[in-house]
Structures are given as C-alpha cells and as structure tokens.
C-alpha cells in the first residue's frame, strides 16, 4: 500500500467525522421536552437552563412564570414559592431563573431568547440590593451565566439606540466575552452595523448553539421534585396566611436553634465559622448600594420588559436585622438604595412593587443573612397571589434613557415614593 493511501486511511475518517459533526450542528433540529423535564428544569436553577432558550420558551408557553432572582431562590424551605404554587394548585408555576451572582446584566442577557413567549404576560423579579455595588455585575460570576447563544440573539436583533449601545459596552467589560462575538459587541457599542461576515458567522454560530441547547440542556438537571413533594406535605391543606405563618414559625424555630442571629443551622455551621464571623463583624460599615453601575444594568432589564409589554412584580427583600447590626451595614444607606430603585421603577410605570425592605427584624422572616425564607416567603406569596390573579394584559411603559446615565448611577438623596398612594403614582 502506498504511503499516501495509508495516510488517507488514517486521516480520512477523522476528516469525515468533522464534516459530519459540522453538518449535524448546522441542521435546525426541533425538540420538545416532556412535561416532567420542564417541571424539573423549572425548579432546578441550572445554569444550562438559564443560558438556554428552548426549555424556557416551552415552559412559558405552558403557564410557567419566570421568577428572576438570585441565591434566595435556592432557599427551598416549605414556604418557597415553588412549593406553595404546587401545594395550592395555583394557575401558574414559578420558573426559577438565577443563582448566586446572577445580577441585572446576566439576567438581561438571559432574557434574550424569550421575547415572544413573554409578550403581554407576567414575570416576577426579586431584586437584591446587594447587586448594587460600585462595579455592579461581578465578572467572575458573569462567566457562570454568560451564554454565547443569548449574545448571538442580542447582537442579531440589536439596534443603534442608547440601551443597546450601553448593553454592548457593558458586555465588553466582561472577560468571558471573546472572539467574533466580542468584535460584534464592539461594532454595536460604537453605533455601527454588523458586517455581512459577522451576520453570517453569528447566524451559524447561533444555529450550532441552539442545537447544543436542544440536545444537552435537559442533562444534569438538579432534581428537586422529591424535595417539593415532601415539603408540600408539611403545609396546611387549606390555604390561609395565618396557617402558613404558623408552619413558617415552627419550621424556622427548628432550623435556627443553633445561634441567636436567626440564621439557618446548616448555613451557620458551614458558612459562618468562628473565624469568618470574627472577620465579618462590623465589616460592612462602609458598604454602599446607592452609587452603582447596576442601576444602569437594571434599566436594561426594564427595557426588555417594556419591549415585551410584560406585567412585572418586583420584590425588594430586607436584610436580617440582627445580621445587619452585626456587620454594621447602614440601614439608612439600604433604604436610600431602595428608594432609588423604587423611583426608577415607578417613574417609568412599573408599579407592582412588594417592598419588604423594612421587615428584616421580623422574626423568622429571613432564612439566613440576606436571603428570604419562611415568613419572608409567606410575605412574598401575599404579593404574588393577587398579582397572578390579574388577567394577562399588554402593559405599556414610559422609559427614559436618563437611567443609563452616570448621573443617575451616582445620584443620591432620591426621595422615597409612597407606594400605597396609587393615585399619586398614576399621576406621575
């Protein structure tokens, strides 16, 4: 046998394999997930689900409502929104999106694939004031939630306006944005159109990533189904806030008896060793959530909701009062940041706000340091329940580019708005 022929026999199949792979990846495959898979995915908080599209699209078409949030979503005590919705056969099921470090910018990117599915529908956002640090989105955490698929979606529908230019600039600051996607972001940030090659590249890349999403996003879901079923049994069979609060108290008493900070025992044991506690004492005295790029990133989320005409309920949680005292975090500063968020929301027409920010000292309201739990979840449900009873409608918002500006990001002394005065809110 000639050498050429032998080489062909060795490398030919490799070549064919690569061509075949390319073909398989570029064919548009359709996929529908089973009801069970969607159910698992909704409670899983998996980053693959967060980054993907198909699973979310299918879920939102079937009555799941996105709950955008972060680490509090994983506080799966029996009063967790997913469990309450299951137990009382609500007309919605929460689809949990987010985890530790998924701040506004990551959330905004994750929302790109479901524009159509959320049009004129509902969504819930649990805002963490902790996102609103000076630099906003933590670049390392962003790496966890960065989805090239959603980046392609964003780029291929980006327009030359303040919001999209701002978004592109912010994405360029994240280290995981690379290659041709990075170049495309640069074009958008500079107000230029994508080149023909970039469009071609992004279209094909998107197809590949869509297929990847279709093929693999149902793998490795974090299975919380049993947890949901088991914990649902603990809840009272007839819904009443009083009964729920009683169960919340019982559960919380049992799970926080190792410390006098009202912190969940496991959390206290694993995350707050003596050394850590010592280090944290008084350490947050100078924390500042008032001056932050996050306000601009948060505006991106609002842009997205406005584009989709989605009806949104915003929940602003408090911080565990005892913990706040321990770390020295300023309550005045915290309330100031909340006032600023509420101003940004209401002035643009987002009026469904459940402001729980002052309730951190209520017993059993928080599961640990900064995360809602037990009675906090009951309070959340008191806002979610009536909200979900409203019919789906097209909501129009009145957005202002002012909220992308450095001036707004650094503004202080924003006046608190009285949320109960619906007439005054309307008049604005």
């Amino acid at each position, binding site marked *: 046998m000639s*050498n050429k022929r*032998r*080489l062909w026999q*060795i*490398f030919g199949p*490799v070549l064919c394999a690569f061509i075949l792979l390319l073909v398989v990846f570029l064919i548009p495959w359709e996929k529908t997930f089973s009801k069970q898979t969607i159910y698992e995915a909704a409670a899983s908080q998996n980053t693959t689900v967060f980054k993907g599209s198909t699973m979310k699209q299918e879920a939102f078409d079937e009555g799941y409502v996105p709950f955008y949030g972060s680490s509090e979503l994983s506080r799966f005590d029996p009063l967790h929104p997913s469990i309450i919705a299951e137990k009382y056969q609500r007309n919605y099921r929460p689809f949990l999106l987010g985890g530790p470090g998924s701040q506004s910018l990551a959330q905004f990117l994750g929302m790109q694939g479901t524009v159509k599915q959320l049009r004129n529908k509902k969504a819930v956002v649990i805002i963490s004031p902790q996102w609103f640090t000076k630099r906003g989105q933590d*670049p390392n955490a962003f790496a966890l939630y960065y989805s090239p698929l959603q980046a392609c979606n964003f780029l291929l529908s980006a327009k030359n306006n303040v919001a999209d230019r701002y978004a592109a600039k912010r994405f360029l600051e994240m*280290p995981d944005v690379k290659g041709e996607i990075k170049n495309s972001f640069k074009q958008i940030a500079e107000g230029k159109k994508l080149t023909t090659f970039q469009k071609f590249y992004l279209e094909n890349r998107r197809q590949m990533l869509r297929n990847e999403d279709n093929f693999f996003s149902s*793998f*490795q879901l974090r*299975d919380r189904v049993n947890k949901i079923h088991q914990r649902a049994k603990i809840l009272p069979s007839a819904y009443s806030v009083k009964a729920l609060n009683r169960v919340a108290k019982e559960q919380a008493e049992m799970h926080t008896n190792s410390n006098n900070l009202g912190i969940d025992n496991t959390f206290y044991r694993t995350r707050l060793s003596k050394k850590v506690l010592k280090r944290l004492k008084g350490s947050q005295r100078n924390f500042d959530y008032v001056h932050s790029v996050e306000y601009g990133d948060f505006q991106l989320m609002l842009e997205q909701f406005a584009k989709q005409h989605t009806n949104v309920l915003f929940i602003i949680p408090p911080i565990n009062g005892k913990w706040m005292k321990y770390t020295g975090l300023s309550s005045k500063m915290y309330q100031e940041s909340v006032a600023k968020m509420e101003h940004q929301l209401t002035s643009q027409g987002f009026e469904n706000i459940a402001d729980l920010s002052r309730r951190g000292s209520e017993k059993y309201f928080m599961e640990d340091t900064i995360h809602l739990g037990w009675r906090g979840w009951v309070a959340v449900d008191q806002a979610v329940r009536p909200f979900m009873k409203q019919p789906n409608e097209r909501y129009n918002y009145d957005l202002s580019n002012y909220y992308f500006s450095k001036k707004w990001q650094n503004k202080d002394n924003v006046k608190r708005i009285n949320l109960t005065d619906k007439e005054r809110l309307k008049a604005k």
Partner: protein
Amino acid sequence: MNFNFINLQPYSNPQYFIYLMIALVPIIVGLYFGHRLKTYEAVFSLVFLFLIFDGSHWQQGVNLLIWLVYEFALTFGYQYYRHHGKNKTWVFCLAVILAIIPLVAVKYLTAFPDNSIGFVIGFLGISYVTFKTVQVIMEMRDGAIKQVDPITYARFLLFFPTISSGPIDRYRRFKKDYDKVPTRDAYITDLQYAVRYLFQGFLYKFVIGWFFGTYWLPKISAAALAVGNANGGLKLSWWVLAYMYCYSMYLFFDFAGYSLFAVSISYFMGIHTPMNFNMPFISKNIKDFWNRWHMTLSFWFRDYIYMRFTFFAMKKKLFKKRIRLSQVSYFLLFLIMGFWHGLTWYYIVYGIFHASAICINDMWLRFKRKHRKQIPHNKFTKWFAIFLTFNVVCFSFLIFSGFLSQLWFGWK
C-alpha cells in the same frame, strides 16, 4: 490589574486538543520526512508546560522548578559518586530517600485540611516525576544506566504528554525512542495508533466516563446518602452497590481515557509511551488484574519495591518460608501504594484489602495445584473467576472512592 492568563489543564477540554494538534503539526511533518525537530519540540513542550502552570497555578510552577533543581543535583551527584567506582548501600539508600522526600512531604502536608497551610505545596504530577527519578537512581546503582544525559533526562522528566498523571515511562526506553527517527513506514503506523488512541480516549473520557462520573454518579450518591441516612445502622442500601459499579466504571473510563490521550500524543511525537490499561475487567484473578490495571504504576511497584525487597530479604535470609516472604512483600507493596494515594483510612484499607486478596489468591492457586484432579476447569469456572475478580475489584474501588467515609462519617 486583571491578568487573564490562558491556563490549560492537560486534556481537559476540546480547546486544548485544538491548540495541541496545531502545535504538533511541525513535529508530525518533520518526523514524516525523517527529521526530529528537537529544538522545536523543546520550545513546544515548554510552552505547554507553561500553560499548565501559569496564571492561578503559578505557585505550582515555582515548586516544579525548585523540585527539578533539587532532583537534578541529587541524580548527578549520585552519578558522580558512581563514576568513581563506588557503590555503597547506605549512599544508595540515602539517595533514594532524598529523592522521595519532597513527595512524602507533599503527601503528609496535604493530609491536613486546606486552610492549615498558608502556601501551595507540590505540583500537578509530582508523584509521576518522582517515580521516574527513583527509577533512574536505582538503575544507576545496578549499572543498567551508565550515563545520564542531562538534556535527555530533563526531557524525560518533563515529557509533557505524561507529566500530569503518567503513564510512567522508563528512562532507557524513552532515550532509545528519543535518539532515533522512525522510518517512514514505522511512523505511519505510529500515526495510525495515535489517531485511534486519541478517538478511543475521547469516547472513554468525554462520553462514557462523563455518563458514569458526571451524569449518574452524583444522582446515585445523593440517593445512597438519603436512603442510608433514613435506614440508619450501617447505612447500607442497594444504592451503595450501584455506586460501587458506577464509580468503578467511571474510574476506569476516565483514567483509561486520559492515559490513551497521553499515549496518543506521545505516538504523534514518535515516542512509544507504554500503555496503562489492558482490559482489566476481564482479569481472571487479582494478580492478573494488576498486570492489566494502571500497568506502568504496578510494574514500577513490582520492579522497584516488590522485587527489591524480595531480593534483599532473601539475601539476608529474613524469612524461612518463601510463601511468607512473598506475603510480606505484597503487604509492603500495597501498603506503600495505599499511603501514596493519600493519608486517609480508606486508601490504606484499600491497600490492605488488595494485599489480602492477592495472598488469598496465591493460597487458592497452591491449593488448586495440589488438587488438580478434584477441581474442575471449564468455561463456567473461567467465567466465574472473571465475575468474582470483577466484583472483588469493584468492591476495592468502593473503598478507594471514599464514599463509605462520606456515608458513615460525613467527610471524604
């Protein structure tokens, strides 16, 4: 400042293979046309070593350099001593002890919880390079290696396809390959194996190994812990059995896949790094198993611990009975292997378990030899032996996995 180093852990993702294959092209073309591009190979190896040990792993890189200087001084010091025609046992013993001290220190220090030591110790693959050094010193003592060439020695120790987890090559074998250029015909055959091993490795590590290790194992583990804690007592359930098989499969496919990559890349470079696995799950007894499982390691232990000790003990007449001698040697070998894996109870129990298994196997073989007529030998007994060996091995891997520790004591 935010430095974004590219850091590539060997064989960890598709990207690594793409970079690697591109960098290999000149070497492949060179060898095909009868040239070994030694300088290019050196630069290329250094770049890939740098990529393993840069960025957040830089302390490991520094440790590697210190280790290298130390072992070089030791090896060439010993060579200087041997070239003066001297061969005292105590000098030899001292050299071997000094050679393994860094490894022993690393093993000892890493046995403590992470936060008790303020600095990074050791580096990825310290075991394997230490084995290589010890082997060179031992063969210098025997006179099998007359002259160690510093450059070849450095290339041998730092041969990057195998640096992180073996297979463990031998100096003389490596030098023979490295000094010559294969004929075109032979090299094409090398390429054929290289491609085959590479794809077999993909299948093993990234497909089969992934399913066992990343997909099923966490689920089984969670179930075993949940059911076990509910049951109480010894916390056993069928899930533990499932864990045992799943983990065993994962261990094999992951490690065999990794070894295949290392062998494949070596073949591309015209170096015949020895294979590490030879269908271990069809072993007919434990001894056979160790001739098929992590072969380069078990052969190293056989040649440099078991055999050395056996000769030493025979010369000194430490044991009257040969059988007793081999039993003690086995326990020594497997205990050292256990300690080498780490200073936790389950690695040591794993060692004792295998030593016992191999001794029992020896007893059975002697019994069988004496009663050859009464004991049947047919297809069924052959398959039964394989089945039994497989389960004994899987059970040993259950111990090795540390899962029992997690189940019973809540730590691993």
